[in-house]
């Protein structure tokens, strides 16, 4: 008998993750907390010019990508594409962040919205990471929290994914299949 085989026979099985009540409550708290983070951040993105006329608000933070570059190609994109069309970009940002917050709050298609949350956090980080008075770990922690929501499918506990997945599983439709994956 080879040594590898004998090791396999004697190895203890990997420890299971804790799926208890405490874990489920903590996951729901993380999901709802991150949802509220996006909801609150939709509050200060004020249309119609999003701070462009006064150099404040969303315009100020977006301009940081050019003033304090983190990743030069991203800065170029902001300078040449986003800032010249800022009102459109402002509305898109407001809609995206409000929607991420709304869906994470109620736990619907949670994994999909967690992915969008990660993408949006990376975009924000690429704008402000080198700006004065920023704490880079805010963004690293946001990404980490979204990863937890994504990996644990946090909408299935105290969220609407948990209510709707049995129904989606019964359906043979394409949309139901996509929603199963997104939740």
């Amino acid at each position, binding site marked *: 008998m080879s040594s590898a085989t004998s090791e396999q026979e004697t190895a203890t099985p990997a420890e299971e993750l804790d799926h208890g009540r405490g874990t489920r409550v903590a996951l729901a708290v993380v999901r709802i907390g991150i949802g*509220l983070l996006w909801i609150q951040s*939709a*509050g*200060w993105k004020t249309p119609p010019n999003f701070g462009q006329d006064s150099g404040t608000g969303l315009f100020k933070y977006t301009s940081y990508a050019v003033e304090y570059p983190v990743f030069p190609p991203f800065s170029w994109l902001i300078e040449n594409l986003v800032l010249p069309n800022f009102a459109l970009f402002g509305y898109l940002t407001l809609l995206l962040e409000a929607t991420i917050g*709304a869906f994470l709050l109620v736990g*619907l298609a949670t994994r999909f919205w967690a992915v969008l949350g990660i993408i949006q956090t990376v975009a924000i980080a690429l704008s402000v990471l080198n700006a004065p008075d920023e704490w880079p770990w805010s963004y690293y922690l946001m990404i980490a929290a979204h990863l937890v929501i994504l990996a644990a499918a946090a909408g299935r506990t105290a969220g*609407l994914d948990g*209510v709707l997945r*049995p129904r989606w599983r019964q359906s043979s439709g394409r949309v139901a299949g996509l929603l199963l994956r997104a939740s």
Partner: protein
Amino acid sequence: MTVEPRSDTRRVSRAGYGLSAAGAAATLLFFAPSSDAIQFVKVSLPVVAVLLFLALVGLLGARLGRSVLFLLAGGIGLIASILQLVQFGGSTNWLGGNGSSAAFLAGLGIGFCALWYAALDSHVPRAAPSSERA
């Protein structure tokens, strides 16, 4: 996989109670000091009225098992959210909130509409007539 209708209904009702409670609890933010540390959602007096109405209709939907009430609550939430989103930042703002109010109302609206959809086929089967039971 088959779904037990009775447990499905219970799950939908419980979620209905949860969303209603969330809407009612958010009205407390009206009394909170205006600090970013606490004011996750801007809740003005008209938003309080909308949230209480949503919570009441959602609560009735969960209590009575009437999915159409979830649809009503969801519709009100979404309409209020769109109104808030269109008006905020302009000179007319009937609800007096901002983007956070719009996002929160959208969340409740989407949630109640999803519950209406979930409840469509999950009703508890009615008891058979007495002649059939015998």
